[in-house]
């Protein structure tokens, strides 16, 4: 059964390097076993039991006070530490399907690959299509097929990183599964989260999917070349998104015509600088 939607077959994600044999993942391992050789103790069992007399003999209350996404968040922090140590700038691109993420990446990769090593982790339910499409640009791309799962989690990204082994100082893009719901909750350890919204979608999307808009740093409004043909008021969309996330930044672009892309490249460069990467 899909870990996320409850639909379909057992979820086993697959990580495949473009141009390589695929490696099957053994499903979501949410326990993330890891060795403690580094000498750090993970014993969070600090005697939080509060036995209540009234509960009767043998009964006790364990105070857990732990986030449900705790395991994912721990792994995300490991990824984040890895990125910091290797000075890798990681951008998690999220959007609904068909917003133009892959086209944006094609243009962006072409712009940056002369300056820094560029890598892509592609997340899709099925197929190698996107990873193969981006690998044609002469960069390394790894595809995570989530099966019927509808988001990437920090564990999948961690495993993909081991396969990709990005060079120090790299620019790494994660193209998340096209979905505005689930990816919002899963921190991958990224340096920055960029949400792509296209003008062919409803301008009320920020109000329908507030969690995703709240979790993003930048909102790219794509396909602006189509504005004359669609009923989409950019200022209304930006206002709605700003209400949900007052610190969200906006850039209007058209990946097809190249309009606004220099500002996006500039945003990436300044983000790399301000993160000290």
């Amino acid at each position, binding site marked *: *059964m*899909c*870990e*996320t*939607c*409850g639909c379909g077959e057992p979820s086993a994600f697959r990580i495949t390097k473009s141009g390589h044999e695929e490696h099957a993942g053994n499903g979501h391992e*949410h*326990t993330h076993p890891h060795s403690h050789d580094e000498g750090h103790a993970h014993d969070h*069992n600090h005697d939080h*039991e509060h036995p209540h007399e009234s*509960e009767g003999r*043998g*009964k*006790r*209350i*364990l*105070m*857990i*006070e*732990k*986030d*449900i*996404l*705790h*395991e*994912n968040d721990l792994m995300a922090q490991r990824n984040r530490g890895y990125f910091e140590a290797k000075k890798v700038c990681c951008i998690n691109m999220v959007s609904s399907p068909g917003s133009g993420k892959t086209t944006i990446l094609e243009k962006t990769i072409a712009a940056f690959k002369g300056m820094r090593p560029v890598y892509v982790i592609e997340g899709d339910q099925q197929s190698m299509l996107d990873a193969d499409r981006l690998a044609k640009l002469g960069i390394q791309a790894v595809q995570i097929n989530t099966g019927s*799962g*509808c*988001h990437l989690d920090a564990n999948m990204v961690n495993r993909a990183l081991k396969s990709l082994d990005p060079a120090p100082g790299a620019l790494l893009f994660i193209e998340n599964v096209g979905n505005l*719901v*689930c990816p*919002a*909750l899963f921190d991958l350890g990224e340096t920055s989260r960029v949400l792509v919204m296209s003008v062919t979608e409803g301008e009320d999307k*920020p*109000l329908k999917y*507030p*969690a995703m808009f*709240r979790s993003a740093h930048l909102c790219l409004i794509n396909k602006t070349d189509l504005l004359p043909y669609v009923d989409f008021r950019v200022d209304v969309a930006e206002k*709605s998104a*700003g*209400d*949900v996330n*007052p610190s969200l930044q906006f850039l209007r672009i058209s990946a097809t015509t190249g309009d606004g892309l220099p500002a996006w490249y500039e945003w990436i460069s300044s983000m790399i600088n301000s993160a000290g990467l």
Partner: protein
Amino acid sequence: MHELTLALAIVEMAVSEAEKNHAGPIGEIEIEVGSLSGVDADALEFVLPFAAMNTRLERTAVKMIRTEGKGWCPRCDRAFAMAEAWTQCPLCGTPAGKILSGEELRIVSMMVND
């Protein structure tokens, strides 16, 4: 609809906490879900028994704490109730500078037998 993923994570975390604490049967688990967390508390409550099937939590009672959204207005320096993630300060119309509560998604406690 990612509630099943979360339900499975809850069960896994609860089982591991019970083991760590050498607990016997788990009578009740208390889960807090904020109204702004992006998770539907009703859907989560509905799928939990399925996630708990054939685990130590199969017969565990679930107590859901639904926490209402509360934001902080940077202009008025006061807290206000947030029905939605985009609810603005009712006095001045400024969007919440910080969400004070409503984003919770956690296991609070478990009542266990020895």
